[in-house]
C-alpha cells in the first residue's frame, strides 16, 4: 500500500508538499497573525526622507554583511553596546537589518553615541580612529548627491509621512549626509541607560595623586581610546580641547571627580561612556594624564 506512493509521482508530490508545509505553517505562517510578531514601541517614529535614504545606502553597500543591529540580552553584550534590542524597535524596517556577522561592532545603539562629526570623519578614514580597523573607506559617498524624486517614491512605498520641504531639502544633501542621519537614528526609540559604574566619582580627589607614573599610564590609554576625538596631547578635534580652561562649554575648571564621571558615563552631547571598557585605575590614570597636559600648557 505505502509502496504505491513511490510509483505515483503526482501523489508523491502532493504528500511531500503537505509534509513540508506543516513546519512552515506552525513556525512561519501562523505567527504572522499573532500580535507578538508586529510589536511597535510608542515612541518609535517612521524614518524621515533623509534617514530612509541613508538606510537604503546602508543596504546598497551591504553594511549588514559586517554589522549586526541586535543586542542580545547577555550581560557583556549589554555592557559593550547598550540596552538589549526590543521587539518593538523594528516596525518600520522592511526588511529587518539584524545581520548575522560581527566583523565590525553591533550598531543597534549607535544612534546618538557619537557626534555627527565623528561619523563623517570615521567614514572618510576609519583607520585614523582605529589604526587596526579593516573597515573600507566610505568618503566617496559625499560626492554623490541624493535624488529627491527617488526618495519620494521610496517614502511612498513605505507609507512614511513627509512634506514637500523634506523632499526638496534632499537635493542639497549627499549620500554621506543621509548615511550619517541614519546612523544617528538607529536604536534611539529605546532610552539610553546610564552606566551604574560612576559611584567612584564620589571620590573627589584622584587616588593616584602623587603617583609619578600615573600620567604615563594614562597616556597609553588616551592614545587608544581618546585621541581620535580629542586630538594629540588633548588639544581637541571632534571633541573639545582638554587642556584649555573651558569645561562643558563653560569657562572654569571642574574637579577631578567630575572629569572621572564624564569619562565613565559620557555626556548627552556626544561623549560616549567608558565605564564598561575602562576600569577605575585606567580612568583615574586618564585624569592624571589630562592634569599633566594642562600643567604643561600653562
Amino acid at each position, binding site marked *: 500500500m505505502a509502496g504505491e506512493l513511490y510509483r505515483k509521482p*503526482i501523489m508523491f508530490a502532493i504528500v511531500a508538499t503537505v509534509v*513540508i508545509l506543516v513546519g512552515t505553517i506552525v513556525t512561519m505562517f501562523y*505567527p504572522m497573525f499573532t500580535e507578538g510578531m508586529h510589536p511597535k514601541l510608542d515612541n518609535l517614529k517612521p524614518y524621515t526622507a533623509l534617514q530612509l535614504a541613508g538606510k537604503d545606502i546602508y543596504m546598497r553597500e551591504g553594511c549588514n554583511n559586517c554589522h549586526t543591529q541586535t543586542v542580545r*540580552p547577555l550581560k557583556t553584550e549589554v555592557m559593550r553596546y547598550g540596552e538589549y*534590542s526590543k521587539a518593538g524597535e523594528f516596525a518600520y524596517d522592511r526588511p*529587518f537589518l539584524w545581520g548575522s556577522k560581527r566583523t565590525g561592532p553591533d550598531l543597534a545603539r549607535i544612534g546618538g553615541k557619537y557626534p555627527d562629526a565623528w561619523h563623517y570623519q570615521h567614514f572618510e578614514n576609519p583607520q585614523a580612529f582605529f589604526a587596526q580597523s*579593516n573597515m573600507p573607506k566610505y568618503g566617496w559617498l559625499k560626492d554623490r548627491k541624493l535624488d529627491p524624486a527617488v526618495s519620494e517614491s521610496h517614502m511612498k512605498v513605505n507609507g512614511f509621512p513627509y512634506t514637500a520641504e523634506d523632499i526638496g531639502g534632499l537635493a542639497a544633501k549627499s549620500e554621506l549626509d543621509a548615511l550619517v542621519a541614519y546612523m544617528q537614528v538607529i536604536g534611539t526609540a529605546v532610552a539610553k541607560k546610564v552606566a551604574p559604574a560612576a559611584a567612584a566619582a564620589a571620590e573627589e580627589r584622584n587616588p593616584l595623586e602623587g603617583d609619578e607614573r600615573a600620567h604615563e599610564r594614562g597616556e597609553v590609554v588616551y592614545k587608544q581610546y581618546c585621541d581620535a576625538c580629542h586630538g594629540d596631547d588633548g588639544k581637541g578635534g571632534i571633541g573639545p580641547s582638554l587642556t584649555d580652561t573651558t569645561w562643558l562649554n563653560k569657562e572654569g575648571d571642574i574637579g577631578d571627580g567630575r572629569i572621572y564621571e564624564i569619562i565613565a558615563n559620557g555626556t548627552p552631547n556626544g561623549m560616549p561612556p567608558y565605564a564598561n571598557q575602562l*576600569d577605575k585605575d585606567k580612568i583615574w590614570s586618564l585624569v592624571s594624564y589630562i592634569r599633566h597636559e594642562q600643567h604643561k600648557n600653562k
Partner: protein
Amino acid sequence: MHDYQYDHQTVKGFIVSSIFWGVVGIVVGLWISIQMWKPELNIPPYFTFGRMRVVHTNGLAIGLGIGAIFGISYYIVMRLARRPLLFPKLARFHLYLFNAAVALAALSLFAGMNQTLEYAELEWPLDIGVVILWVMFAVNVFGTIIKRKEEQMYISLWYIIATVIAVAILYIVNNLAVPAGMTKSYPVFAGVNSANVQWWYGHNAVGFIFTTPILAMFYYFLPKSTGLPIYSHRLSIVAFWSLVFAYLWTGAHHLVYTPLPDWIQTLAIVFTLFLIAPSWGSVVNGYYTVGSDWSKMQTNYLTKFFIMGITFYGLQTVQGPTQAIRVVSQLIHYTDWVPGHVHMGTMGWVTMTTAASIYHIIPKIYNTEIYSIKVANTHFWLVLIGQLMFSITMWITGIQQGALWKATNADGSLKYTFMEGLAKNYPFWQLRTVAGVIFTVGMLFFIYNIYMTIRKGRALAASQA
C-alpha cells in the same frame, strides 16, 4: 545512447556553465578573504566587501550550486525515468536563460541592487527571472518523471521532487515585495516578522539547495560508481520523510537571543536537534553501502569523494544542531565560527559530491574514461586539505572572538575593546586566505581533468563519425 545525445549536451552545458560561475565565485571569495586583512583592496564603488560578499555567496550558490543541480538532476531524471527529457528544447532554453540570469545577477549585485535578505539578495526583476527558471526546471522534471518508462521511483527522484517543491515555496514567499522602481523594492514583511520569514527561508534554502539535491546525487552516483547497492531502502524512506518534515521548523535557530518570540526560537532548536537523526540516516546508509566492500576505497577513485562528502555532511549536521543550542549560540553566533561551519558544508560536502558526480557523468556522456585518475586524486587531497584548514582556522578564531567579547576584569568591566578583539583575528584571516588558495588550486586540477576528458571524448566521437 543516440536518443540522449541532445539532452546530454544540455547536461554538459549546465555542468560547464556551473564550473565557469564557480571559478568567478571562488575568485571573488579569495578577493574578499584578503579584504578582511587588507582593507586597501576595497575599491569603491563596485569592489567593496559589502557588495562583493553577496557576489561570492550568490555566484556560488546559484551559479555553481544551482547550475550543477539543474544539469545533474536532468541527467539523473533521464536515467531513472529511462527516457530522454520530455521537453528537450525547453531544457536547452533553460540553460541559456540560466546563464543570462546569473550574469545579470552578478552585475546587479556589483551595482548594489541588494534586498539585504541573506541568500535572497537579488532584486525583484531578477527574482521573477529565478522563478521562471525554476518553473522551467519543474516542468521538465515532473513531465519526464510522469512519462517515465520505469515504474518505481528511486530515492534520488524523491529528493529532486522535494527540492523542486520546497525551493519554489521558500523563494516566492521570502521575496514578496513592493517594487519602488526597477532596481529597488521593500519586502511586504517588516521587523521581527521579516526576520522570521527570512530565516525560515535562509535555513531551508540551505536545506533544499545544499542538502536534498546533493543527497539525490549521492544516492544515485554512489551505487553507480561503486556497483554496490544502497544498504537499506527502508532507512532511506525513513530518512527522507523525517528530513523533509523536520527541516522547515528550524529556521529560527538563526535568531537565538534576538527579539523573536521565545517559543519560535525554542521550537526551532528542538527540531534542529531532532534533525540529526534523518541526516545521519543518510550518512549511515552511505557508510554501510560501501561497508559491504571497503576495498572500493582503493580500487574506485570516486568512492573516497563520496565517503568524504557524506562524512562532512555528517559532521555538518551534528555541528549545526550544536550551534543552535543557546549556550553554544551565545559564544559563537556572529563570529567567524559560522563561515567555518558553512564552508565545511559547501566545500566539504556539496563541492566534493558534485565534483564526483561530474567525474562520473562526463566520461559517460562521451562513452570514455576519465582523463586522469591521478589528477582527480590530487584534486581530492588539495580540496580536502584546503577545506579542513579553512574550517578549523575559522572555528578557532570564532571561539576566540566570542571569548574576548565576553571577557571581563575582576571589577566586572569588559576586558577587551572591540578593536583589540578584531586585531587578534588577523593571523587567522590570513591563514584562511592560504587555505582558500589551496582549495582553489585543487579545483583547478578538477577543471583541467574535466576539460581534458571532454577533449578526449570529442576526439573519440569525431573518429567514430
